[in-house]
């Protein structure tokens, strides 16, 4: 019985994945160094590397729209700095 309850709880949760990337006009020195290193390793067909951040947020919310809206607010208030970064929800399930 308890196990079933836990399972039900898990099924109600939404997991939202969000990617944060630097805006195009912002210098990304780390991405540049990664590009150079990959180049040195023989991966010579790269145009550019940009480094970003990825978050998985497991929420208690069961409604997908509400969960995504909530994560958008988190991005705007804390997870991303909108002067230099963009955010994109890539998956919620």
């Amino acid at each position, binding site marked *: 019985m308890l196990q079933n309850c836990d399972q039900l709880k898990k099924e109600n949760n939404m997991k939202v994945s969000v990617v944060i990337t630097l805006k195009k006009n*912002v*210098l990304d*020195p*780390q991405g540049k*160094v990664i590009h150079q290193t990959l180049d040195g390793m023989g991966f010579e067909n790269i145009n550019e590397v940009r480094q970003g951040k990825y978050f998985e947020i497991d929420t208690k919310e069961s409604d997908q729209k509400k969960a995504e809206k909530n994560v958008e607010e988190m991005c705007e208030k*804390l*997870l991303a*700095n909108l*002067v*230099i970064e963009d955010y994109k929800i890539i998956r919620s399930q």
Partner: protein
Amino acid sequence: MISSVITFPGSNCDRDMDVALKKFGFKNKMVWHDDVELPKSDLVVLPGGFSYGDYLRCGSMASKSKIMKSVLNFAQGGGKVMGICNGFQILVESGLLPGVLLRNKYLEFICKNVFVKVNNKDNSYFKDKKKEIYEFHIAHNEGNYFCSNEQIKEINDNNQIALFYSDENGNINEKSNPNGSLQNIAGIFNKQKNIIGMMPHPERMIDPALSGEDGSIFFENLINNLR
């Protein structure tokens, strides 16, 4: 003159700032980040360090801490707020100052003395001083000032740049820019000039035996201007 220095978890220049402020006549109080109320102050200082281990983005967590609500109210009411290094990062993350501080252009932690040139003397921090070039210490990994085209236009239009990185003769160029900062910016004000954020540490230059005296000149001038 009463000052308050806020200590965040990971601040490490808070006690240096306390020593510097007291040496030049401030009655200083240390305030914990989890406190809600700010003591009555003439100056609030956000010190340098690595608040919250620089997690997520430097200063981002500290800018949401409990005491910052009171700091925001104090600043928006015209109170004098000074952010040094990590304190500058906290001020931009809290929205009190425009822009952001990115990773240094050449990906190095920079720890050395630099020269900065004062751009604007119409404020409590640099008023009434003939001195234009100061030698201060910098120690940071994320001091590369950046903002949008619209923001930099507004900053220049309102004369909000406080300090430029320069050489000892006051030349402002790429060679005298240690971290890739936009327009060699080392410190900026808000529009009203009551809030200043700067990467250099004046509190590290207050003892002629250990460093230099340019920090002493800065603090002496500051307390005189606030009186």
